[in-house]
């Protein structure tokens, strides 16, 4: 099938108007030796995945349903590590599915895009409130790419320095993306415990990245780190990397802690897991100097040229690739706009009351589970700070495999075996709980762990 509305008759009229005999003749400036006729085109189909004739809608749906059925939808999920299982209010899906939002492009034509522009403006307002920062952009791809962009922004402030210091545990999946994306820039990466930051500072340090909540779920005293770093050397850029945007509902904001740039993952604000994407990276800054180095779209309010009315428009575009080309600090064009829209509606649906409730239950569920598991023989909690909704347990040798097997058999997604990401973390498991995990399922996981230890 295809989605072409023109009839054969329409096509004939149009061909005549254009002055060519048939559709094939339209390609008359393509060199003959690379032009595929019907027969030659068939030869490119080697795998058989792409058929000659396509499918009807009914065939497509049943084929896709077959694929979907071979992905297990777990009854309860205890895995986070950068992607979180949260409740999404029905109003979010309902509202974002409006075609006026869904099938629109970047709101370049402001007067016809006031709806989307206002939604972005509201998002910027929510993110600045949640982060306590002054300015937010309109979205980046995910937590990992936001961190990449934050480091590039830091570099724009101080081109000679080359050391990036991480305090707390950075998600190794983020770290791979950072190391790959920034590989031509020659940075050195140092990973230190939060209390070791000051002892490790030297004149090469460009930025200190405080991870909080970090990969292990730890909540750092970011304010203490930021204050100490700035006292030692105000030129160092302090970045907070936030694993879980929902945590901002109850934790001290990055702005109140005195950081320069706040970045992180906002998938937890109304975005389905979808096997890890599309997601939503947020980025917010504390001052005007950094605002002008910020990547991505920004929406501002302004007045009519000939009138008193107020409206919204994309602004500060002199930062962006379509204006500055190679002089632009970032190449981003398509971003994660629709997920930003999900986040705005999700945050508005929960309100301050719902956000605080949700965040609080995340902490309580994690504490409930952590407390039970830590009491098991041979299970040790590896966190040395309070945690948000994730925590790490060292389990008895090879218990991890038994836990995974038992969870799989009971249709649970069990804790993440960290040894699969880093050999230093052998026998450590990263647990995550959200408002979605009920007590019964947590108790089942405790039973699985109990049996795995014996």
């Amino acid at each position, binding site marked *: 099938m295809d989605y072409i509305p023109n009839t054969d008759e329409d096509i004939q009229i149009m061909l005549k108007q254009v002055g060519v005999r048939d559709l094939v003749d339209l390609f008359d400036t393509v060199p003959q030796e690379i032009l595929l006729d*019907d027969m030659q085109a068939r030869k490119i189909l080697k795998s058989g995945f792409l058929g000659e004739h396509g499918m009807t809608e009914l065939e497509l749906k049943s084929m896709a349903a077959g694929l979907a059925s071979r992905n297990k939808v777990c009854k309860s999920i205890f895995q986070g590590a950068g992607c979180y299982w949260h409740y999404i209010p029905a109003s979010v899906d309902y509202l974002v599915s409006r075609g006026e939002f869904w099938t*629109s492009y970047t709101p370049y034509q402001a007067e016809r895009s006031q709806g989307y522009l*206002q939604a972005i403006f509201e998002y910027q307002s929510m993110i600045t409130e949640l982060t306590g920062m002054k300015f937010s952009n309109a979205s980046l791809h995910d937590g990992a790419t936001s961190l990449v962009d934050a480091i590039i922004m830091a570099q724009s402030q101080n081109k000679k320095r080359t050391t990036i210091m991480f305090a707390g545990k950075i998600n190794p999946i983020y770290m791979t993306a950072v190391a790959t994306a920034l590989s031509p820039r020659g940075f050195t990466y140092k990973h230190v415990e939060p209390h070791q930051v000051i002892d490790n500072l030297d004149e090469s340090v460009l930025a200190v990245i405080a991870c909080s909540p970090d990969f292990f779920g730890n909540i750092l005293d970011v304010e203490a780190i930021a204050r100490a770093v700035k006292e030692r050397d105000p030129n160092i850029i302090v970045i907070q990397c936030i694993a879980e945007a929902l945590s901002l*509902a109850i934790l001290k904001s990055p702005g109140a802690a005195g950081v320069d740039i706040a970045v992180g993952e906002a998938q937890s604000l109304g975005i389905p897991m979808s096997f890890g994407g599309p997601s939503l990276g947020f980025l917010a800054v504390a001052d005007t100097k950094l605002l002008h180095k910020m990547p991505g779209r920004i929406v*501002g309010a302004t007045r009519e040229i000939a009138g008193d009315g107020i409206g919204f428009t994309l602004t500060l575009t002199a930062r962006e690739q379509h204006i500055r080309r190679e002089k632009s600090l970032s190449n981003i064009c*398509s971003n994660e706009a629709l997920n930003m829209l999900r986040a705005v509606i999700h945050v508005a649906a929960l309100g301050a009351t719902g956000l605080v409730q949700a965040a609080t239950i995340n902490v309580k569920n994690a504490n409930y589970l952590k407390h039970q598991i830590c009491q098991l023989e041979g299970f040790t909690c590896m966190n040395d700070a309070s945690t948000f909704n994730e925590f790490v347990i060292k389990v008895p040798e090879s218990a991890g495999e038994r836990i995974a097997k038992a*969870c799989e058999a009971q249709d649970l997604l069990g804790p993440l075996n960290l040894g699969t990401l880093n050999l230093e973390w052998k026998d450590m498991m990263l647990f995550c709980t959200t408002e979605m995990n009920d007590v019964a399922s947590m108790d089942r996981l405790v039973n699985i762990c109990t049996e795995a230890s014996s």
Partner: protein
Amino acid sequence: MIATIFDKAAPGKNATSFVAENQVKDIAIDIPDTLLRNGLDIPDVPEIELVRHYIELSRKNYGIDNGIYPLGSCTMKYNPKIDEAIVNMPGFRDIHPLQFLQDEGNSQGILQLLHELQTMLAEVTGMDAFTLQPAAGAHGEFTGLLTIKRHVERQGLGKNKIIVPDTSHGTNPASAAAATFEVIEIKSNENGLVDIEQLEQALAPGDVAGIMLTNPNTLGLFEENILQITSIVHEAGGLCYYDGANLNGLCGVCRPGDMGFDIIHVNLHKTFSTPHGGGGPGAGPVGVKQFLADLLPGPRISNDDGKFHIVMPEQGGFGSIKAFHGNIGVIVRAYCFIKALGLDGLRKSTQCAVLNANYVKECLKDTMCVPYTRRCYHEFVGSDECMPNGVTTEDIAKRMLDLGIHSPTIYFPLIVHGAIMIEPTETESKARLDDLVDIIKRIRKEAEDEPDIVKNAPHTLPVKRLDQVLAARNPVLTVKVLKEMVEK
């Protein structure tokens, strides 16, 4: 007066609440007070007001579902609704990206889909290996340029320049700079095509790592000397990068791989019709020829033993360019689109996209200046140069909004004065195209008879033309600052 969501607050009446179960209700929060926040100024909004607010905002917006959206280089084609139904199946929507680590058997459906898509993209574009990970076109460009960087390092010749034509998308030079290349821009010739002489001059010093080209180019013209171009670049030891933003002009009809390109990204949200969503999410898979496969970052899916596996690049290659496996929600939709069409549907779509653009160009050639008259492909570029009474491209665009349709891309490419870049796509009917033509003809007539109507447009939208200079000079970027602005 503008009412934002913050104006809809009704404390305690929020739409969605959560209450802890009995067993965890009394669990203590053990986080020290000094690490907790004081207050959160987010409005509690009753569900009915929440719904009305965002429905109202949607009414102040415009999508393909409302009408024609002829933005050049953006490929705003119809987005099939079945693809939405499929991506919302729990088996695609509610799966965790690391669940395969517990047991690979629990994710075989999605891995098969990814494996099939990476293979189909390779076949359709003439490449050998694809990663689906990059999140957007520009993100794909950056991924491809990192691959070129690694290739140059392996060669050890220290090449550090990337050539882009002056018609290229802004992301091309920006991506090259982000990968720390130096950018050389070459001018187009009088036909709007790559100037071979200039290209040879740029290559002469021997320090060029590669060229980035989009074909058809942003004037909508096929680079007729493409085989010569790629061969000259290869002879000079450079690589050829294909910007897939304009793939809708040739998909299934000819292949970038056969033109001599070594690396390509594909904008799934353009050619393969996933919704643009107001600026994203997109997906920008990157494909390479075999000799670069080991340098390409990002996961790939293998199928060696009847089971599908996620394979990360080998030692010496790069890791990932973002978290997890790519924008899966977008990838699933694109997969469905390709499967629905099949090869015949892809070819017919390309042919009709090219027919539609040529038809509109033909109908408008006496209404607006069309500086390049060669055969156009998926799009063409007009100019405001012969508009009467000083009517500009911006005026025309705003007046089009007034008359109920979206405007084309304007002021790009930069080499055309007051560029008006029109890409109708194959999913618009002749009747819709005739409407578009009539509207532009009407504006032309208004420009002659009553130019103020055009110059002061729009007249029928929620706001009149906005002051962009004020917006940038005095940034008002949050609701709090907006309140101060209103009070002034």
